């Protein structure tokens, strides 16, 4: 069964990749095994240390989906403002975009081709 594929300027073989991944995992395991041996599961040492402050309720520590990538959204606020304006949810706007594309296609087919 053929596994490799030609990508035009190279090739892709997932089995080679998996072997490389396995080697990387083995190296990772070897490095990890060099770590401290006195780690004890279920003792105080596994609890997070927050600069000596009491740990909050774990539910409150969960970062909600809406808060993730806040910085990305803020830095692209202008772009997103425009995009949200375009994605108005108004069906008439959807039809306008269809007409715009028909006009561009007409220009290309009758004017350029």
């Amino acid at each position, binding site marked *: *069964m*053929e*596994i*490799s*594929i*030609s*990508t*035009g*300027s*190279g090739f*892709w073989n*997932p*089995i080679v*990749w*998996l072997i490389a991944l396995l080697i990387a995992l083995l190296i990772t395991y070897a490095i990890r095994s060099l770590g401290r041996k006195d780690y004890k599961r279920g003792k105080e040492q596994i609890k997070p240390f927050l600069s000596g402050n009491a740990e909050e309720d*774990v*539910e409150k*520590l*969960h*970062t*909600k*989906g*809406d808060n*993730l*990538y806040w910085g*990305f*959204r803020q830095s*692209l606020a202008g*772009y*997103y403002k425009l*995009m949200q304006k*375009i*994605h108005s*949810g108004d*069906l008439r*706007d*959807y*039809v306008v*975009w*269809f007409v*715009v*594309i*028909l006009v*561009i*296609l*007409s220009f*290309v*087919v*009758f004017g*350029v*081709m």
Partner: protein
Amino acid sequence: MIDLFEHIPALLIAVPLLGAFLTPLLGKVNKNARNIWVLLILALTAAMSFLLAQDVYTNGIKLYTFGADIPSLTHPDTVSIPVRIIFEIDGMSVFMLLISVIIGFLAALYSISFIKDENGIERYYTLLLLLITGMIGMELTGDLFNFFVFIEITSISAAALIATMVDREQSFEAAFKYLVLSSIGALFLLLAIGFLYGQYDALNIATIASSMQYTFADRMALVLIIGALALKAGLAPMHMWMPDAYGEAPPSVTIAVMAATLASLYGLIRMCFTLYGSSIFNLSVIGALIVAMAMISIIIGATMALIQSNLTRAIAYAAVAEIGYMLLGIGTALHVGINEFGETALTGGIFHIFNDVLDVGLLFLATGAVIYATNEKSLSNLGGLARKMKFTTIFFLIGLLAAAGMPPMNGFASKIIIYESVYRLNPLLSIGAILASILMLAIFVRIFYSVFLGPELPNLKNVREVPKAMLISMAIISMLIIIFGLFPGYVIDNLVAPAASALANPESYINAVLLGGA
């Protein structure tokens, strides 16, 4: 005695159609009998599709003339052109057919548990079978008007399915938008068919393709066909119905509607490469335009998915970006022609069609499992579900990695072909596509973290794993993703290459009909 094997193309329409109309009757008798009936009909349709695929891969293009004494006889020698409806099935048709029947079966299997408490389940299954019939018809027919009829069947049944959750006004709104836009697209398509029929007095794709003269009517029809089918395929900036429809439909419907969208994309590809594929037309500029629209789809889809707080809408925008990846490869092939890297780009684009419906489809089904278990769609109200829904978590993770194009999943195999071939057209296109793919990974990681990781939330303490039928559907898709990812060479050689070859050689498609007379 009738040779049923010879009549498979007709049976592929007749069997699901019969199944659709008998489903409500069986539903009145027994619910389990109805469910088994629907699955049996779709399993039979899938089995016939595999037999047909085997035949096409072994013997080449298959012709089926409706009403003819000998189905392979396209026209008697006393008539110069075919006048009957002909199904013409080549490598590309079979490729799309397999997608439709596999996804149709899995959507029905998933639905058994997912919509069991909804009203009007008989109507639901009838519409689902009609939707699958429409898709199959679009992919098999070699007749333009017949294509229009099947596109209408898919549009109407898909719109009704999107509104399945009748108690939610958002579903109605999404269905209404889908129906209006589909109708507009279909009417413009009909207008284009009228132009071509008036010019050539024929509706058969091969016959018209062989007679193309590059007249005003031909070019007007080209504008209308590309516009209408790009709208149906959800190419930016005409993608806006997709987040509405995919986001509001039940996920079992979404995956079927995704397959229907890809059937429209097939129509776009077929018209460009076969109907207008003769050397008279230079579609290089159209190819460039499709590449531009594909890049816009990728960028808009990826960036808009990032800011969604609704789980299904986020994945719907990712689906917009995935349509862009397919058309980036296909548009490049149209732009540069079938040269060395044009053919590779075409292969990558076609391969990505199958990968997209598996990857994003799995994400929709896993999302559906989350909604089924929690009745929640908002990312802010979800978290910690990996503790209660282990299998769904694994399936979502597989879908996430595949859709984001992570090796060794199938999405990576098709995307790397697209990146490397498109790079030779313009490196900036590849760089943009890769950056968008990285952004997609970030989006899916955000969704995965928000929904599955973190502490157990108090409002989700009683959540349980979803029923087996839903898990089996997701498991089958996951298995296909892994197989396609680990053996991409086998998939390309046996499924994708015949499809790409069929598009690259329109003469074979044309000659099969024109020389198919006695």
